[in-house]
């Protein structure tokens, strides 16, 4: 296990390094002078030169890369061109709201998708099965910005059950949670369409296996067979989806935050891109990458804990 973890962490460092390299180089890959892009078409040459120095663009490219990486290692992502605030501070402020949203959406996704999948697998071909089959198409194919708008229109504008805009303050938890519900649901809808279908398929697969038949032949109780024996095996492939789920939630927050007027990484990234605010863009994308990679490692590790067979083959691989 330790050997495997080390291998995965090593891989993660390589991926993060490549991401950082790409981000550092992006300034030069995008057409146009970044300094001019920040200042607009009417800036004077003096001002541009001044900004170039401030942005470090006067130094050789290798030197710029070095500055970026050495800063990264110290936990310094540079300073915002526009406001002069350290990027880490900006991200720190935005991160909490985004994580709350992503987490809430994933909790909703699992809390809704898994029981629905179980219910469907209990009676394949039943009313619920056919209903979810039809709905899942809609949920899976509708983009977040569409579902967000529809939810916003129905529950905030028409029915006025929930607030429409803003993220609220942690100090007022009820208000904060009420503002999370709509955007989190918009993000979870996809999984409510997707998870039940996957779980239904894996569950029916597992219920048809020899070991379930064997358990029946030994007189195991039907509930034990379904909820303990079959479910554990059927849920395994879904654990592997966890990494993907984190990625989807994080990218989805960009839409949800914009539409619901929430502060967060998504809106931060959007405004930074508008302003060609390179240090902020780099910082936000780097944070996304970090979370995505961590989530995938976590998903693989939990898969390992749940499936003893994978543990063994991993021992084979690393020769432990």
């Amino acid at each position, binding site marked *: 296990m330790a050997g495997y973890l080390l291998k995965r962490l090593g891989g993660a460092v390589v991926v993060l390094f490549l991401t950082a390299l790409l981000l550092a180089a992006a300034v030069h890959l995008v057409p146009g002078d970044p300094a001019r892009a920040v200042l607009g078409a009417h800036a004077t040459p003096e001002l541009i030169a001044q900004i170039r120095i401030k942005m470090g663009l006067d130094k050789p490219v290798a030197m710029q890369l070095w500055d970026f990486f050495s800063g990264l290692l110290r936990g310094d992502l540079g300073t915002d061109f526009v406001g002069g605030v350290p990027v880490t501070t900006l991200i720190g402020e935005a991160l909490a709201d985004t994580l709350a949203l992503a987490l809430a959406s994933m909790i909703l996704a699992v809390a809704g998708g898994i029981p629905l999948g179980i219910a469907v697998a209990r009676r394949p071909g039943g009313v619920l099965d056919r209903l979810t089959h039809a709905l899942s198409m809609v949920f899976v194919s509708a983009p977040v910005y569409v579902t967000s708008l529809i939810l916003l229109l129905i529950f905030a504008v028409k029915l006025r059950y929930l607030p429409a805009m803003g993220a609220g303050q942690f100090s007022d938890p009820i208000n904060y949670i009420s503002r999370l519900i709509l955007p989190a649901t918009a993000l979870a809808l996809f999984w409510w369409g997707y998870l039940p279908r996957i779980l239904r398929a894996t569950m029916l697969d597992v219920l048809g296996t020899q*070991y379930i038949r064997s358990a029946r032949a030994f007189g195991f109780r039907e509930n034990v067979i379904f909820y303990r024996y079959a479910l*554990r095996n059927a849920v395994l492939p879904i654990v592997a989806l966890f990494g993907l789920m984190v990625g989807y939630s994080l990218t989805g927050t960009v839409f949800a935050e914009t539409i619901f007027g929430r502060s967060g990484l998504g809106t931060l990234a959007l405004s930074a891109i508008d302003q060609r605010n390179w240090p902020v863009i780099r910082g936000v994308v780097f944070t996304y990458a970090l979370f995505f990679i961590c989530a995938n490692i976590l998903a693989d590790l939990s898969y390992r804990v*749940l499936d003893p067979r994978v543990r063994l083959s991993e021992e084979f691989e690393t020769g432990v």
Partner: protein
Amino acid sequence: MSDKPLLDIKGLDVSYHLDGDVYAALRDIGLTVTPGEIVGVVGESGCGKSTLSASLLRLLPGNAEIDRGEAWLKGRDMLRLGEEELRRLRGRDIAMIFQDPMQSLNPTFRIGSQMAEAWRSHQARGAKFADFHGEAVKALTSVGIPDAAERMASYPHEFSGGMRQRISIATALLLQPSILVADEPTSALDVTLEAQILELLKQLREDHGTAIVYVSHDLGTVAELCDRVIVMYAGRVVEENDAAALFDNPSHPYTRALIDCIPSRTRRGAALATIPGRVPSLSALPPGCKFAERCTMARGICSEEEPGLVPQAGGGVRCHMFDPAKAEAWRIGDQAPESVAAPPFKVSVKEPEREALIEVRDLRKHFGEATGFVGRLLSVARPPVRAIDGINLTIRRGEVVGLVGESGSGKTTLGEVMLRLQAATSGGITFAGKDLRQIPERDFRRRVQMIFQDPQASLSPRQRVAALLTEPYRIHGIAAEEQQSVDALLAMVGLSADLAAKFPHQLSGGQARRVGIARALALKPDFIVADEPTAGLDVSAASAILNLMRDLQQELGLTFLIITHNINLIAYMAHRIAVMYLGQIVEIGPTEAVFDRPAHPYSASLLSLTSQIDAPERKRGRLLVPGEIPSPRNPPAGCRFHTRCVHASERCRSEAPTLETAGHGHEVACHFWRHIDQEKS
């Protein structure tokens, strides 16, 4: 066996419903099982064996329907019980173990937890867990799981196939059912492990008086294990009798044919019987006797009227031609099955030539050998898998050599390395007098062929048979005038020309195997490696394939290396037999010599464990091989077999024996073969 039956099945009809068709899976089944009795159920695939065994626990799939019948178990009709009552019966009164031990345990639960669940399912609320633990350890120990208390925390994948089957049996033992249904419990296991499991089943009956219903397509094991046997055909019981009577004097033509299909040493030199045609589709059964269209004895009445069960001493026979009053006179033996009338085949007719066709010298194939600097650095503590470890073998032109050994002995790897499908790690191969490295790959490929173990999987599913058969010509750019026609190739392997337009999935197992053989023969190769040529086939299809291979070998003078764990097949077909163990040949010699006087303890055991159908061979002593084959990653020092050998001494643990002569062309690698040989005589 005068006891009151434990289980009494009467007039059972089961049908499957699929896409609007009705399949008559079981019709009018009667079966009784008395305490402590072992009842065998045999028949080809598609005859209803598995449906019957599942019906005994009412464990049928959702599309199955019990149309009619009674199933009395301990005074209760199972067919009229509710789900919960039925559940209480399953496991405690009647339990079942299945064919594939690799899949019958839940992979994500420790075995102890699975056994505990079985315990909990049948104990009243508040049963002490301490009780369970002691009982489970006892059960596991008694089926031969060492360190049972610790191993209960292991997961199924940490056990071998044989061990998992033991765990299933131990779980049954824990619940003490009066009947155990064993559905092909050894079909996925090697002969050594099969023998161990069969011993275990016998012991279960001895110690606990458990009655066993043993379902198998392997007549040999049935003959050895069972007291009474029922033969099934197309969902009917066609014959029931005491085991000895059934195998010695089969009354139904189908039983007779099944027995005659089996290759064995005593049948060497004669064509095997085959059963023409196939089991009829259960959705379109003919009227009359279901076996009539394949039966050499059928008369007009057979295809018009379904015969009833005519009683005979140990049971009954479902045949119009059977007349109990004239039991001696009408005996089917008077009228030999048609294929036996074919000109007799003598292995000695065409002695192989002296010239060596293929020769391997000190051949090795190691997998996972560290390569490169980094590889070596990372795998210090990790030895390679020594699949083949120093093999010398010469096969002469026109010779049939049989290669036997347990799974993991390296048989298939040897075949593949000899055909250059895998590169050897070291050692030399000479083909037709030339070093293999000097023969261009393409030339070599034309002259050697492989008949693969899984014919269906080795034929491209998107090509028709005609295209598959001519593909070798296209690959090798053979001129049209040198090609054989598709019809000729099909005819050669006894298939009709209309199969040319079919796709592989439309073929039966036997037909696919024949197409594989035709494909291999298209280029007129010199040397063919046949990997388990009859694996997965029913006895009748298997015997037809063996007859075909033998005929072709004689006609075309082919040279064969037959890789198999079916020793009866080698005894029937091969000029010479080579026994492999952990990557090495431990004994090699003329088939007759090795069978008469096996010199190596391992070969002696393998031969003794091979199930025999013929009466004189049936009840001879069996030399069990304890334990399982060690990992080829860490083969034991000295003689590799010493860990499982009853004769092993200090010398065997330290010094590896080399092949020495034990007779004309007969070689053995054992320090003590002379000594053991004397002991035997």
